[in-house]
């Protein structure tokens, strides 16, 4: 199996501030941010053009929600793992996220350590796969 030394990450959040913060947390050279999308539509467009190992997706977004986007990614871009993020963390929302294939759910505001731990767990499953 080919070793991966560069994990491709897509950030999807309608908040510029949130995207910038997440991006600033991912400074390790192993993380390659392949794009930032402010909507589900934009995210799909990026994924059609560039492969991502991980998509970090906000739940509440205009027009198409992060949950719907995660479901589409699960169905269409099956090599892309999803981390859902949201200020809302009610049980039903977390269950919805997991049911559409999200690998993890982080409530905002999360620390850099929390995000990295989540990414590294996914990376370990990719490496073992």
């Amino acid at each position, binding site marked *: 199996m080919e070793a991966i030394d560069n994990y491709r990450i897509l950030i999807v959040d*309608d908040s510029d*501030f*949130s995207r910038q913060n997440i991006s600033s947390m991912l400074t390790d050279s192993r993380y390659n941010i392949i794009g930032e999308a402010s909507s589900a539509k934009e995210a799909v467009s990026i994924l059609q053009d560039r492969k991502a190992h991980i998509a970090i997706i906000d739940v*509440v977004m205009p027009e198409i929600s992060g949950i719907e986007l995660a479901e589409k990614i699960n169905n269409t871009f099956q090599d892309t793992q999803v981390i859902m993020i949201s200020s809302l*963390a*009610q049980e039903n929302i977390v269950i919805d996220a997991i049911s559409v294939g999200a690998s993890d759910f982080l*409530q905002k*505001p999360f620390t850099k350590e929390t995000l990295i731990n989540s990414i590294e767990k996914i990376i370990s499953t990719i490496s073992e796969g």
Partner: protein
Amino acid sequence: MAIEINHIKKESLNFMEIINLNLDASLNIYNQAVLKRTSSIQLFDMSKLSLHNDNSMILFKIHGEIEGFLIAHISGKKTIEFNSEHFKSLFIESFNILTGKFLTNIDNNLGLMCTLSVPREIDSLIPFSQSKYKHKFITKLDLITLSNTYQCKLLFIGNEKKLKEV
């Protein structure tokens, strides 16, 4: 951190207390800012708030067992700061986080399930002055960034559909 509710029966709480106890006192926003409450929840009279043609208000719609709106408003320095896209985004995301955590706390502590809309900018409270909204509350917060402190208000306008028995 949310204030803990210990041994308090829902039926003995009025709605103002529910908001007061479940709205975080202070939130660190990714080490870029702190949102800190500077007052308790109070009733407010819409007619005494002159928030018309004011383009520094962000509205979140709440659906579910609480129906209504949370409106975040920045007082002072607003024109200059709100013209900055970076600051506007920081402001919106800070209140998005506060509001989301509030609804999560209400679900965890009281079993009241609600969802939150995408935030949108509004410039007037006139549409919300209708009498169908039973509750109108206000609280004050400071948004403390790395360079400045901004005085803000958070308004709640709405109704609780049903408070469940404990």
